[in-house]
């Protein structure tokens, strides 16, 4: 049995939000999307630390725009991507959660 993988709630939110982004997968667009999903302004510090953590676990990676943008002070822009390992973790987490929810329809309905 593979060792259990812990996926925090916010990490899960971030991974799902990245998957939902279609064209522009930059951090700024991700933050806007997360703000909508969470219904509140997500803290930038928390977001960037989470991205660092997800990258350390190799669940996300990114490509960098070659274009040199003056409005970014010449700094690169990342386009995020969920790695196959990240997808596998998400899949497992979804399975676990759905399993947990199963059979609770009556309680939830109450």
């Amino acid at each position, binding site marked *: 049995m593979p060792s259990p993988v812990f996926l925090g709630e916010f990490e899960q939110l971030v991974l799902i939000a990245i998957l939902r982004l279609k064209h522009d997968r930059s*951090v700024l667009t991700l933050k806007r999307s997360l703000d909508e999903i969470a219904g509140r302004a997500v*803290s*930038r510090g928390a977001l*960037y630390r989470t*991205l660092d953590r997800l990258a350390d676990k190799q669940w996300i990676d990114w490509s960098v725009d070659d274009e040199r943008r003056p*409005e*970014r*002070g010449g700094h*690169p822009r990342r386009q995020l991507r969920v790695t196959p390992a990240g997808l596998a973790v998400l899949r497992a987490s979804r399975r676990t959660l759905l399993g947990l929810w199963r059979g609770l329809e009556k309680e939830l309905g109450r």
Partner: protein
Amino acid sequence: MSRWTGPPRLACRLIAAILPPTIAGRSTLGDLIEEFHQRPRGVRRRLWFWAVTIELAGRYLPGRLRALGGGFVRDLVYAVRLVRRSPALILGALLSLGLAIGVSTAAFTVVNGTWLRATLADDPSLVRAWRRHANGASSAWPLDEFSALRAQATHVRLEGVLPSAETVAPTATPGTTATVTVAFVTGGYLSMLDAGPYAGRLIGPDDDRPGGAPVAVLDHLYWRRSFDGDRGVLGRAVSIGGRDFTIVGIARRDFVDPTRRLPAMWAPLASLERLPARATEPRPWMVGRLGAGMTIADAETALTSLFDMLPRTASPRATAIEVFPVVPAAETAANRQVLTGVFVVITLVLVMACANVSNLQLAGTASRGLEMAVRVSCGASRRRVLRQLATESVLLCSLAGALGLLLASWLTPLLAAGLNLSGPDVDPDARVYLFVVAASGISAIGTGLWPGLHAARHELPSGLKGAAAGRGARRTRSAFIAAQAAASVVLVTLAALQVRALAHLAWQDPGFDVDRVLGVTVAFPRTPDAEARAAAFWPAALDRVRSLPGVETAGLASFTPFGINLGDAGQVFTNGADASYFAAVGQRVLRGRTFSAAEVAAGARVAVASEQVARRFFGDDDPVGAAAGRIDRTYAGVTIVGVVADTIVDRIHPVRTPLVYVPLEADGHTQMAVRTNDPAATAGVVGDALHALAPEVRPTVTALAEPYARQFDRPRRYAALAASVALFALVLSVAGLAGITAFAVRTRRREIGIRMALGARTGDVTGLFVRDGLRPVIVGLMLGFGAALLAGRYMAIQLFGVSARDPLALTLAASLLISAALAAVLAPTRRAARLDPAIVLRDG
């Protein structure tokens, strides 16, 4: 784009330092900058950026610190916990030190951007060549003379520069025009002055040819402010006076143009032909570099003899060439004095803050005696205890340094604006950051040393018994208070002297009727017969102006007061004057007489000396009737016929410019002085009359009271600045004194209780503490006065004639400090004296 359109630079640098130096870190900074630009302009988005910076610092800093190492981090964590335990003590220390570092850094940044950069750029082999002619001397050279001399000079490398106000716009963004100084220069000018480049290239001889490509080199500061420091500007076009110039380079940051007109860019002199025709012929200034081992006198002789050999040119012949250092000796001396003065003030402010914090720390270690004793008895080495204290000091001073840097980033623009410095480069550079690090480091040593040594000497048993600090500690505290009092008395005295100097300045005799004289300058159209037309214009203009209602009289001179910028006040200058000039400006004749109309018409070999010339060259002799050759060989054969009062020439200066007046030969640069009862009303009338007389000329009429009033701006700002620093120092030292007295009273509560129980009255106890508290203040006061007298001597140039031993200023400073000290000591002492001895003795 101004510096306020981009995100705060300091915050960007902090983020860059905090985040890991990876692509992720850099792109995070990029995200924040991009989001900054998407937000509506204004202060709120700057505040937002700072808030995000602090949030990121909170997230990333602990991890970065952990990576630094074990023991240090443990000490640091403990130090942070201490902050939580006694926040008031630490915050007081932090605020005191942070404010001091902030004020010092702001002062240093401004000084660095102006005087320090100018002093470092000062090169004694750089000179300016003036042409002396019949009516005096001028820095502007007719093009034909300039070209001929430059081509022939071999001993001195000569280059030309013509600073000119031009309308400039980056061609890519039309509509954003500004009027800035563009210096039109010869091909070798920038390389001779070692102007870099920082990027791209400089203007070369190939650019300065008729038909050469129109190119421009940007000033580093202008590039940062107007192009946001974008290196992509190279190769782009910039419009100067409506014509496109290609930007080919950026000058190095520390380059100071010797014209001191702060040019925004440099363009080839030859490219002037592309711009619309000027009202007057362009006359460049001549800047040169002396060959190895050559003195200024050698250069003057060589250039004058070379000039005599040149074929005659169209313009009226110059008689000699005068060579001056690019930076006048008086300015270099004044710069050094300002620098010394500011560094003394910075040192004093830092010393005061360190003394303050040391005292607080001493109080802290005294109350932490038990903790130290327990640590030592549990096996901690003295070294370990010292390291802990050192870490606390370093943490405190680093935080104070960061706070100071933040404060300085707000204070510096205010300070520069307050001093009305025309466009200095006050963005922090490496020197400023080095200063902050040094100031914080010195503070760390200054604040940590005494408490550390004290703790190391601390006797174990007394610590365990919780005994209060002994006599030694009290003596150290007194020494710190004395040092603080001395430093603040110096600052308060210097401020009082500045205020007195301002008052003194207002009473100084300007030497002419400031409120009744109009100065008139005239620009003639650039035509081949311009000089002849100017010569014909002036007599007619005088007649016309004299006949106007409200005009008492009018006279002509090469320059009227405030009509010229001489630069070096110590040099003897020649001024041409006609028969009625002295009466027109209201200049007193002290001996002899002034010129007659016949003498002026004939160009007689006579001269009128100013009081300064008479005193300097003739001493007790009567100069009237004497030969003027004694002043300078250029006046050989000229007889002095009178002495007139000194006047202000271009600015208020303790030494009035020595002037020799000679009969005027009117030309295109002549100026007119008009005496009237109502300058405001007459100014317009005079301008209209001259324009009606010759529609092609452009007269400028100024009531001389205006430039005179502007002379007070700088001294007023110096006084205001000195007063604010002194106030800050006073608050700092009073706060320190109050804190220490409160501490002393707390540690001596038992003693107070016993005294009261034995029958001492409230007055006795108050008297005891006031005596104890004020003793070090008085000692400091004495020391401070001695130091202030010494420092006052160094700033004599800014005192405009007020003695550094001015009794009024010294009394004012002493009474201010003593009353402040008394207030600081009385409050805690009175509280202590009201204590109930029974309660005190019971509580221990």
